[in-house]
């Protein structure tokens, strides 16, 4: 079996926050039982926090772990003492009491609950409420907005202020997942196009979804929030340290739930602005392409790239799909049918209709909002002329534009 | 020793149990049906 050597994981280990030692010590015991693997990378606590929320969360977590560890040790020390001292085999005679008698006993019986009430509602409760108020304060002094849209099984990121929008998908090769080649260092936690955010800016994150519920989670940000179809949820991050931060979808969202990572590049602001300008210029060039006439070969070549990024997870790279949930495109009745009606309008339930508007109640989503005119035209043309489909026709980006 | 329950007593208890059983069943059904009228 192809496995990356353990030393490549050392980076992760070094990132484990110093506090881990405090709460981790107790927990190390079971790992030490396995000396052969004890040299590998183990982490016993949250990864290093890089936002105020994550720091606060880690602090709360460490404090709570300490409290419950003490509770655990004290309570079970008493029990174990009793189990040693009050055994029949050493001749202990059973007592007869069935409850507290007298004021003093009542006092001692009630003390643990007074302590517990104090722990629940004061010691743990007050910091918890403060943390909630911080977490939910998405609007105060927000510097920018990032819109995150979950889709089966990729993330779309949108910068509303600059009109920039792109899809970010898993870039780990399928061969690595199938154990046909060695796994890379960031196996399953790498994407083709990471989202870029400036360091030191409060970013208000709006979340929604096009199909089912997804959850956007980056452990080092201390942020986990659901992306719900038809609704907008929000959260915020203020990244304090440049770096590459990785997370995953946390809500079961179907077949490739385990294969839709989140990768965030946090960079200093000037670098971020430069990246933004470059992206905008690129988007402009791409949009310009929508107005010219494309050749079929151009469309098929572009379409193949779009297909492999967006469609192949379900319909498979060979177009055979995974029936019945994910139908085949090869030889499909939907694909091998007229492109548009005689007036150049969309035919209901046709190939173009499915790609633009999706199919309700299935994983086939509406792509009209997430793909550009060029991408839509290209992928439709590609599908009609691949996997043994020989329709020979094509659709121009300009046509898609007019059909929207 | 006397039997646990006389036949008459047992019959009375069983019919009381049956009445309460139907009542609980009706409550369950009512809860279920009310749920279906949640408007959204």
């Amino acid at each position, binding site marked *: 079996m192809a496995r990356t050597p353990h030393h490549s994981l050392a980076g992760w280990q070094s990132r484990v926050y110093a506090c881990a030692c405090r709460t981790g010590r107790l927990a190390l015991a079971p790992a030490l039982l396995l000396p052969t693997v004890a040299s590998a990378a183990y982490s016993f606590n949250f990864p290093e926090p890089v936002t105020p929320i994550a720091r606060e969360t880690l602090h709360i977590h460490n404090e709570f772990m300490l409290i419950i560890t003490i509770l655990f040790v004290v309570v079970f020390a008493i*029990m174990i003492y009793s189990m040693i001292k009050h055994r029949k085999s050493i001749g202990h005679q059973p007592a007869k009491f069935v*409850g507290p008698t007298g004021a003093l006993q009542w006092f001692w019986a009630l003390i643990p609950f007074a302590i517990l009430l104090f722990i629940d509602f004061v010691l743990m409760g007050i910091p918890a409420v403060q943390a909630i108020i911080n977490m939910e304060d998405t609007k105060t002094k927000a510097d920018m907005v990032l819109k995150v849209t979950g889709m089966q099984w990729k993330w779309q990121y949108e910068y509303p202020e600059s009109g920039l929008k792109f899809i970010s998908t898993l870039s780990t090769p399928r061969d690595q997942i199938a154990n046909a080649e060695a796994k890379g260092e960031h196996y399953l936690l790498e994407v083709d196009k990471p989202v870029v955010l400036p360091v030191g800016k409060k970013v208000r994150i709006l979340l929604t979804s096009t199909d089912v519920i997804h959850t956007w989670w980056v452990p080092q940000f201390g942020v986990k929030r659901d992306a719900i179809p*038809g609704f907008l949820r929000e959260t915020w991050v203020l990244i304090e340290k440049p770096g590459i931060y990785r997370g995953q979808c946390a809500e079961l969202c179907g077949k490739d739930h385990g294969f839709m990572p989140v990768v965030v590049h946090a960079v200093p602001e000037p670098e971020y602005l430069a990246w933004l300008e470059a992206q905008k210029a690129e988007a402009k060039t791409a949009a310009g392409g929508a107005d010219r006439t494309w050749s079929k070969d151009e469309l098929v070549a572009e379409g193949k790239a779009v297909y492999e990024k967006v469609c192949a997870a379900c319909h498979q790279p060979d177009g055979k799909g995974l029936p019945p949930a994910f139908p085949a495109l090869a030889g499909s009745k939907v694909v091998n049918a007229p492109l548009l009606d005689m007036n150049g309008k969309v035919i209901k339930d046709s190939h173009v209709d499915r790609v633009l508007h999706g199919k309700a109640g299935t994983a086939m989503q509406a792509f009209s909002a997430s793909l550009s005119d060029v991408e839509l035209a290209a992928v439709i043309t590609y599908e009609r002329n691949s996997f043994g489909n020989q329709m020979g026709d094509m659709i121009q980006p300009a046509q898609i534009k007019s059909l929207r | 020793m006397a039997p646990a329950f006389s036949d008459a007593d047992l019959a009375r208890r069983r019919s009381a149990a049956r009445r309460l059983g139907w009542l609980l069943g009706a409550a369950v059904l009512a809860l279920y049906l009310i749920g279906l009228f949640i408007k959204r």
Partner: protein
Amino acid sequence: MSTATTHAAEHPAEHYPGGLMRWLTTTNHKDIGTMYLTFSLIMFFVGGLMILAVRAELFQPGLQLMRPEFFNQLIGVHALVMIFAALMPAATGFANWMLPLMIGAPDMALPRLNNWGFWLLPPAAILLTLPFTLALFGIGDGALATGWTFYAPLSVQGGMGVDFAILAVHILGISSIMGSINIIVTIFNMRAPGMTMMKLPLFAWGWLITAFLLIATLPVLAGAVTMLLTDRHFGTHFFDAAGGGDPILFQHLFWFFGHPEVYILLLPVWGLMPHVLSTFSRKPAYGYTAQVYSFIAIGLLSVVVWAHHFFTAGMPIPALVYFMFSTMAISIPLAVLFFCWIATMWKGAMTFETPMLFAVGFIVLFGIAGLTGLILADVAADAQYHHSYFVVAHFHYALFAGGIMGVMTGVYYWLPKWTGHMYSEKLGKLHFWLTVFSFNLTFIPQFFLGLAGMPRRIPDYALQFAEFNAISTLGAFVLGLSQLLFAWNIWCCVRGGPKVESRVWEGAEGLEWELSSPPPHHSWETQPTIK
């Protein structure tokens, strides 16, 4: 089956059909209890096999054994089987067998309803697992792949496995409601003269609260999945924002049932614990009244805390604060129970037979579930724990260490009473130590996986999670295999073994120990004396 033959031998005048018809038509609480327990044991292994396949896939990074779709089916059906077909029937089996003996009743109040309640279970279990088989023949795409929570809209777009599961949940729900009604009316109407409510054994109290919780929450689950069914097939939009619905509504409805369900699974076990602890400490249970009121308090609190299962779905700050504090409040009555359990042991004369070992193991490991549950209630920290392996570890401490080990406590405690034979203490103790060791080996690493950021329900994972997953899989296989000892011990005990007296355990108190072991086919032909 030897219990059956023993009864028959003692009652030559009994007339009931032999063979299969006897079991199909029986209205005897002991027969039905035996069937519940047998069914539960079988389904325990079915659900266990499913999760071993899952753990095998997770042994190493990469996809080795199965496609992600199949993985998703296994985890969801594992949960449904373990909860609805293993744990709940086991508790109902206990109730059927023991309640009439413990409260001095000749049988359950509604014997025919009782028969129905049981015989709905096997068809439901078949419905739940049938899609796996159908898929082998090319029909449909397998069982439900949404996890046991059925979250819409994923469940709306799912295949026909979802419909099968919806139907199965309806039937399982009806069965549980029948069982609950029977238990409530039996406790209310069939107690022997002199057995007042506050003299009721704590096991009966635990089950009484469970039964009320089932009656209050199962209709809501049934309603939620019915709405799901109509969304899927009849064009309604309860959970579809495009039609004015709300996917989060499903989560509210589901967890309104789902959270009390945790206590439904645990209350019978909590009711059983004081009996076992007091027996093997040779000392009466501490704080009877306090325990009764704690049961009631937990029952009431459990129906008002549901939204802590989806803090990350987003809700207003007052709602977050309310659900956090109400959840933390459950720790108080729960702490009362822990206090009473330990106070029952305190200054007793303890011996550690297998049931006592399981009871002590239960207390310690369930303590971990309770304490991690306390910190999970914290909204900020929950943002990290939620939907990670931390939660998976937490609820397995609650439902395996709390639920299943509690059931095992009961089985070892009452098995000699049911069969009239002693099981092998040696095997029982071996089973205990193997179970405790391998259970912790399986789930302690999962706490750390969750903290490091591994989401649950993923068939493949990043390399930094590899070591802990390998350890966890190792533990899971030892855990699974050691349960064969359990089954073997039960099998041998049913077949034969040293004869036991009516009072099987030296310190046992309560009506059930005044009847012979095994008890006669018709219990309490003479009136018991209530102390």
